[in-house]
């Protein structure tokens, strides 16, 4: 029995793969798959299908991914990843995902950091419609007895001993009862957006606690300094709402008002890719435009000139959403936008087979750090979640890991009652503000050291284990950013503005003997 923790794109892909191999798994999630962050994914999924007559190739997808990620990932890993994409998208089609079609072929749109139309989509609801099809597919294997769903069950602890994985402690949120499940485990718990409550585009479900616990128990993390700010988000109550990159892929233009006139800064500065430069570049430029001094201090996304067919057909859902939440009709008025935290390139360190440094523990999806380097290309993370979940599952099935602590890895403790000491909202917000200050779009030593001191103080003041673990993971993010004394992708240091060959390596962070150790590992 394999335990899969998280039922978004990566978790559900892992569960389906395990089932197809004829093995059984438990699928745990805080809420059912229908409510996972993956359903929010908007703009699309990348694959070099070359359906738009531009002569796109897997090789170019590979190169764009390496370039977008600023050459941190292992080449062969990215070759395999991009080569798998067309088959993944065609399989989704065979499961009935209603991709937008061009004739009888899947249509593809432009996305950031990629010259050719490579992103398959369904309006601006691609994640939702893919999840619907995969949930149906998982249901088939649930019916056959291969997948056991635990859809209101939160993992509250991990048990690791001597570098080997034992099991997870799970709490049934509806009853409060807890139980342990032993054996090989795949973590698919999504991004660390919960470390930054209310200021990301993600969900409240991904609270970052599993990652915090894993880190404090010695699981190696990597590239924690790379946090993706999406250039076009809007503040709504309790979160940042994403305006998909598809809006620019379909022709949206960014501008600010300088000396009373619109200034299309992306088009002026980057004449080739223009508004579709990789996200790290666009976000930085938006930040600079906002702080330019001669502008009105705002950035706008102009969608007014989009063809009627795009407004009506390809982006109707996005237009409706903006109108509903901001009372702005984007077809007549440019939308004020700002960069906001959107994705974590860093996370649990995994090898090509998605193994962590702990035997029997695997990780996939946004919680794992692989494929995206210093900056993720839009459309590559749904792909990474599906591909990663599949690879992790195959490795776990092949290795057939058995936990030393129990007889066959499926032993269950009798249910008991336990109240988990959750982090308090006020602590979580304090931590967020400290990290947010240090880990902004533009960073420097002074700001980072100041955040470091504040995090250390915060850690010394709490006795709550969850809070301590969260702050320790936050501290590792800061330390990783301090140690990378260069600028690369999403990590921009005002005091080290150049890219340096010396740091062409993934940073790793391990908590060991009460200390956080940061190292750099060449691909």
């Amino acid at each position, binding site marked *: 029995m394999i335990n899969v923790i998280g039922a978004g794109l990566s978790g559900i892909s892992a569960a389906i793969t395990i089932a197809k191999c004829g093995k059984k798994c438990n699928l745990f999630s805080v809420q059912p798959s229908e409510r996972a962050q993956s359903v929010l994914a908007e703009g699309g999924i990348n694959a070099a299908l070359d359906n738009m007559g531009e002569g796109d190739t897997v090789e170019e997808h590979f190169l764009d991914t390496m370039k977008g990620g600023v050459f941190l990932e292992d080449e062969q890993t990215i070759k395999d990843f991009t080569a798998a994409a067309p088959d993944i998208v065609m399989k989704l*089609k065979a499961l009935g995902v209603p991709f937008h079609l061009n004739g009888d072929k899947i249509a593809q749109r432009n996305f950031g950091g990629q010259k050719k139309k490579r992103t398959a989509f369904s309006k601006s609801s691609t994640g939702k419609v893919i999840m619907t099809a995969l949930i149906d597919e998982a249901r088939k294997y649930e019916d056959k007895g291969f997948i056991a769903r635990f859809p209101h069950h939160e993992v509250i602890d991990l048990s690791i001993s001597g570098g080997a994985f034992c099991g997870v402690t799970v709490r049934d949120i509806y009853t409060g009862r807890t139980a342990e499940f032993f054996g090989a485990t795949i973590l698919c718990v999504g991004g660390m957006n919960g470390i930054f409550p209310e200021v990301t585009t993600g969900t409240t479900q991904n609270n970052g606690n599993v990652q915090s616990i894993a880190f404090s128990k010695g699981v190696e993390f990597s590239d924690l300094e790379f946090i993706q700010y999406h250039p076009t988000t809007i503040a709504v109550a309790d979160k940042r709402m994403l305006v998909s990159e598809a809006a620019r892929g379909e022709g949206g233009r960014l501008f600010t008002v300088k000396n009373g006139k619109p200034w299309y800064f992306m088009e002026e500065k980057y004449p080739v890719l223009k508004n579709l430069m990789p996200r790290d570049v666009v976000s930085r430029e938006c930040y600079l435009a906002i702080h330019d001094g001669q502008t009105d201090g705002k950035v706008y996304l102009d969608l007014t000139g989009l063809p009627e067919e795009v407004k009506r057909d390809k982006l109707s859902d996005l237009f409706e959403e903006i109108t509903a939440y901001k009372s702005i009709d984007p077809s007549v008025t440019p939308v004020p936008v700002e960069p906001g935290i959107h994705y974590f390139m860093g996370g649990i360190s995994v090898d090509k087979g998605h193994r962590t440094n702990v035997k029997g523990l695997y990780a996939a999806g946004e919680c794992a750090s692989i494929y995206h380097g210093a900056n993720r290309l839009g459309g590559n993370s749904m792909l990474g979640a599906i591909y990663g979940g599949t690879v992790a599952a195959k490795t776990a099935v092949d290795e057939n890991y058995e936990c030393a602590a129990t007889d066959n890895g499926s032993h269950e403790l009798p249910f008991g009652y336990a109240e988990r000491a959750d982090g308090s909202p006020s602590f979580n917000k304090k931590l967020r503000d400290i990290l947010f200050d240090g880990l902004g779009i533009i960073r420097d030593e002074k700001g980072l050291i100041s955040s470091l001191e504040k995090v250390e103080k915060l850690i010394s003041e709490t006795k709550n284990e969850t809070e301590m673990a969260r702050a320790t993971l936050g501290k590792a993010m800061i330390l990783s950013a301090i140690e990378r004394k260069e600028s690369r992708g999403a990590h921009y240091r005002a005091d080290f503005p150049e890219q340096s060959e010396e740091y062409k390596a993934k940073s790793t962070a391990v908590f060991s003997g009460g200390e956080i150790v940061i190292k750099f590992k060449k691909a």
Partner: protein
Amino acid sequence: MAIFIEILRTKNSDKQYFETFLYEPFGDGDTIATALKKLNEREELKDVDGKAAEKIEWECSCLQKKCGSCAMVINGRPRLACDAKISEFKGKVRVEPLKKFPVVCDLTVDRSILFANLKEMKSWVPDEKEAIINGKEIQYESSRCLQCGCCLEICPNFYSGGKFFGMAAGALTSRLISELPKGERDEIAKAYKKHFYAGCGKSLACKDVCPAGIDTEKLLVNSNAVAIWKRKSK
């Protein structure tokens, strides 16, 4: 403007009871979800009379009406809390759990029946190798269903555990009914007839209430044409 929020609760009690809180919105965009979140974040939660109150149990996830998590009954109508702006309500609003599902605690209900019903209907592609017909508006609409349960709450014919599975199942399975090739869709069509068609009174209360704005009528008409009258799918 401050507002009284009257919440139907169960915490620490065998019976449901109302507890009222005073809430001062932070901004125009505040929703019932914002209010519930902010009330729970108070260092000491007190009701309107200053009596100490327990944290309010409820579910949310996306906070932008895309996940269906926060469905509840607001002033008598099933809605998503993250889509119910405080500014809509004058002075007072009543918030209750969905009534067609067992209450877990306060506003959290157990909607497992939604998924059990879909399993019963065999809502899946039987053989992924067979040619699927893609890209139709019906499939897109159907795929957007949040499984929130608002349509079941309003439906005069649905009750949990009954043979009629309601629009949550009807909407979701209309994707498969419209896209599976003939021969592949027999089972799902049969299940549709038994668990949806036979029980649906076509009042379309579900259409008005669906927070995803799904045109349930369009889905129902198409599924009836294909599954019952053996006509071609739109």
